[in-house]
């Protein structure tokens, strides 16, 4: 469970994220959408404890990411925008290092390693040097790294970027299967991805939440694309239209 509460982040005079709140329930996949520069990465960095918020907070399974940072961080698996690989290490050595860092008990490291190599399709790759892997495989190693300690909360920043269509399909399947009782937040700007695997969608634009809704509650017959475009343009025009209004309008337009 992730609760984001009134998050605001300012870099000097520039406000990247403005009073963002949303909730991701246990066992659900939340799709975090927004145009480039909307504040997706900033929000995810705050959720994972990489950077502090100017105001507001985040609760990870009820633990505050600021005041109970270590305990909260223990629950998170995080794939940043750029997979955080040490380019001169071998895949296997790298994943073992992350496992230790994430507190996987020594006796369980080998089985955890085998497991993530298997699920991320890296069984042929353990001895390859990270820097020599293609973009798609780096992404997989990044995902393996986020999964190695079997975290209850997964934060994935554009997990399918740079992959070929087959890989995208595989990774989506993987994320879908992973969810189980995990909470997954993934950011993307590929809209079909959200309609395929997510339970809930949060759209932000210019640092504000413009829509938070369960996918099954979205008006029937409207494409996510319309909703998305409408939500972000509405935001630009009227600055702060409520989600309900946005939905109503889109729904009305198509029925």
């Amino acid at each position: 469970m992730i609760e984001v509460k009134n998050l605001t982040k300012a870099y000097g005079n520039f406000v990247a994220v403005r009073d963002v709140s949303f909730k991701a329930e246990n066992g659900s996949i939340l799709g975090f959408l927004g145009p480039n520069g909307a504040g997706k990465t900033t929000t995810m960095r705050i959720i994972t404890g990489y950077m502090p918020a100017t105001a507001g907070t985040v609760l990870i399974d009820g633990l505050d990411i600021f005041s109970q940072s270590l305990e909260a961080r223990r629950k998170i698996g995080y794939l940043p925008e750029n997979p955080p690989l040490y380019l001169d290490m071998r895949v296997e050595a790298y994943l073992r290092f992350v496992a230790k860092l994430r507190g996987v008990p020594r006796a369980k490291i080998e089985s955890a390693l085998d497991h993530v190599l298997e699920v991320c399709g890296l069984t042929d790759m353990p001895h390859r040097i990270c820097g020599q892997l293609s973009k798609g495989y780096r992404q997989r190693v990044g995902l393996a790294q986020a999964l190695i300690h079997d975290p209850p909360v997964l934060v994935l920043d554009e997990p399918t970027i740079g992959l070929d269509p087959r890989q995208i399909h595989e990774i989506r399947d993987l994320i879908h299967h992973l969810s189980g009782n995990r909470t997954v937040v993934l950011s993307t700007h590929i809209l079909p991805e959200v309609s395929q695997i997510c339970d809930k969608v949060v759209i932000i634009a210019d640092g504000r939440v413009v829509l938070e809704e369960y996918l099954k509650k979205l008006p029937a017959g409207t494409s996510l694309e319309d909703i998305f475009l409408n939500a972000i343009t509405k935001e630009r025009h009227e600055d702060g239209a409520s989600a309900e209004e946005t939905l109503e309008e889109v729904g009305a337009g198509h029925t």
Partner: protein
Amino acid sequence: MKNSLTIAGKELSGYFLQPVAYVVMTVFLLLGGFFFFALLRYFEVTLTAYSAMQNPEVLQRLNLNERVIEPMLHNLAIVLVILVPAITMRSFAEEKRTGTYELLLTAPIRTGEIVAGKFIAAAAFMLIMIGLAGMFPLILVAFGNPEVGVMFSGYLGLAFLSIAFVSIGLFTSSLTQNQIIAAISCFGLLLLLFVISWPTQGGGGALVDLVRYLSLPDHFAQMVTGIIDTRDIVYFLSLIFVALFLTQRSVESARWR
């Protein structure tokens, strides 16, 4: 502690996955060997000259340690001013640039543990390198009869000096994501430690005393001449402590609101 050792292990093996460590070690040992050879050769020439003059009093004062090991250690200390920044510049700057910093800072570990891990690895690297340079006095022991205690004290001084240097290198690396900036500012600070007492000649007062205390060559020279004084050890330990403390604050500052 366990986390620090995990990071230290990764860092230390990381040094040897890159050619930089081998180049630094090779340069250090080659220059060390050159100094050793040149100084020993000069010592031999002097010895032959004084023997020919049949001057037993001067001959008595010719000391292998004073003439060979001491100047060699002083030269190696200067070499370290240039080599240490090359070793430590990557430590934080590279992680920030490649994004692995995000992995470290979101892992359930304290920033102190990250700094300690990187420090242990860099210090261990220096000890390995200086340990290998221990072959020079061993050659003297094998073929002559030098004062082992004095040589040990000198090497201990070089070890303390190198560990203080890497602490300062970690600090400058933690301030930037640009390795060149990290290396050059580290080099500047290290060189400053050598020359900081220059303007204090003939002066007095608390500030002058402080600046004189900060001057590294005096403390190092003491140990090289065989005097292990707690004041000098405290000097090196406090340099290490202050540099690591500042590094920890600098890394932690990423979490400040």
